[in-house]
């Protein structure tokens, strides 16, 4: 089944942090099965979700990601036995922190995708991509990166305009 390739104004950047043994293999299966899904996702391969430090998710947003997907083995199937159990707790905590800071949680998706679940990979990626597309670009971090402490602010047209408006 081929999906029509639509032209969109906004192509979200989705970073997917995945584990080697399950989700990456599942994504691979989706590929070899010639399943079509949005090409917006950039996959970063980790040995295990247990290796995924929350700082990577934060850094992804700072570097321009509009949405982040974190995916690994189902609980009980971890190649390293317990990595995903630790990750599950860590991400539960990190989600709460992100929410408290004011990040829209619908931009962050966690999933368990096994090596056999090529179809699920496609579903998860497509749903996240379309959800983030509807939300628009993630401007918060980009705008934050442009802010300077007042003393480092240079004389620029924006500053002039502010004074003119007073």
């Amino acid at each position, binding site marked *: 089944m081929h999906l029509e390739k639509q032209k969109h104004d906004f192509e979200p950047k989705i970073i997917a942090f995945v584990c080697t043994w399950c989700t990456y293999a599942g994504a691979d299966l989706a590929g070899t099965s010639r399943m079509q899904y949005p090409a917006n996702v950039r996959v970063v391969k980790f040995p295990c979700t247990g290796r995924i430090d929350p700082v990577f998710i934060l850094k992804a947003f700072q*570097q321009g990601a509009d949405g982040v997907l974190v995916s690994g083995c189902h609980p009980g199937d971890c190649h390293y036995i317990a990595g995903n159990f630790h990750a599950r707790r860590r991400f539960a905590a990190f989600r709460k922190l992100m929410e408290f800071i004011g990040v829209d949680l619908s931009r962050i998706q966690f999933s368990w995708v096994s090596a056999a679940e090529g179809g699920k990979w496609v579903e998860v990626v497509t749903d996240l991509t379309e959800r983030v597309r509807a939300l628009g670009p993630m401007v918060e971090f980009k705008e934050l990166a442009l802010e*300077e*402490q*007042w*003393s*480092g*602010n*240079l*004389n*620029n047209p924006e*500053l*002039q305009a502010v*004074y*003119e408006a*007073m």
Partner: protein
Amino acid sequence: MQKQITEANFRLLLDSLLLKGQRVVGPRRTAGTVLYEPLSSASDLVMDELPRRSAKEAFFPVCEDLLEYRKEGQQVQVTDITPDRFPETVLIGIRPCDAAAVPVLDAVFSWDYNDQFFLERRKKTTIIGLACTQANDACFCTAVGLSPSDPKGTDLMFTPLEGGGFLATPHSDKGEAFLATWQDRFSEPDGSTPLPSAQPAATPFDLKKIKAWLDEHFEDAAWDSIAVRCVGCGACAFVCPACHCFDIVDEGTEKTGKRRKFWDACGFWKFTHHASGHNPRDLQPKRYRNRIMHKFKYYDDKFGQTLCTGCGRCIRICPVGIDIFDILQDTENKG
């Protein structure tokens, strides 16, 4: 020559400056804390509280860009920050302890290298001081050769008058020029008495005696007991009007980024950490020793000045209650 200005005219003057598009920086309450920040109206100005940080950031920003780089294919584009981008600024309500630090910073930023980022900002700034009528138990400007009404470092000094208003005394060409430009806001002094100056309960130190002890006691067990409680943060250096150490880092990706200069502190463990892994100041007493040495010996050796204006911020802000006045007093008694 001296002039006088009423409270009302002072507010009008500030609003006029702002309307002209002039950046006016003064003590302002921001998210609950009083800091020297750009005002958006005369009513922002806070005159009865010492700002938590000093005014040095007007010339020596907390964080500033030095250049920007961009890589396109094999070409690298480097864009320098040029001085024409620094805005003209009027610093208002600057306390004597903050203003006196400016000539002290001038010396180091035009020593072996003219730091254009500092000097150009300095050129574009007019400093209007405000004499202090209150002090608290952490203030000790009088102990380091200054006073709550010392005009050192100011272009124009405002002294509060009984009955309101200020006496405006110019101390530089810039100050004279400011008075001339805004002469319709000012009037001739009418003989009103200035409010009594603040009286910090700090008797002058014999700074030479303190330096003499420091000259001879680089290795001394006293440093261990003085600094054992220091936790190695940069709070004292960052709130200090005279501390001026900085770090330069490149931040960005391989494609694009900026070179930034921002405050650094000798209290950090990383300050003297070498690329080899060796750290000559590997323990906190050595790092704290450097703070005292730099302020009361090294700076005097190089520039004939003390790197401290007695504002007392480090005493108030230290998370572990280290009191530099106490340390200096003990050192003076030892000598």
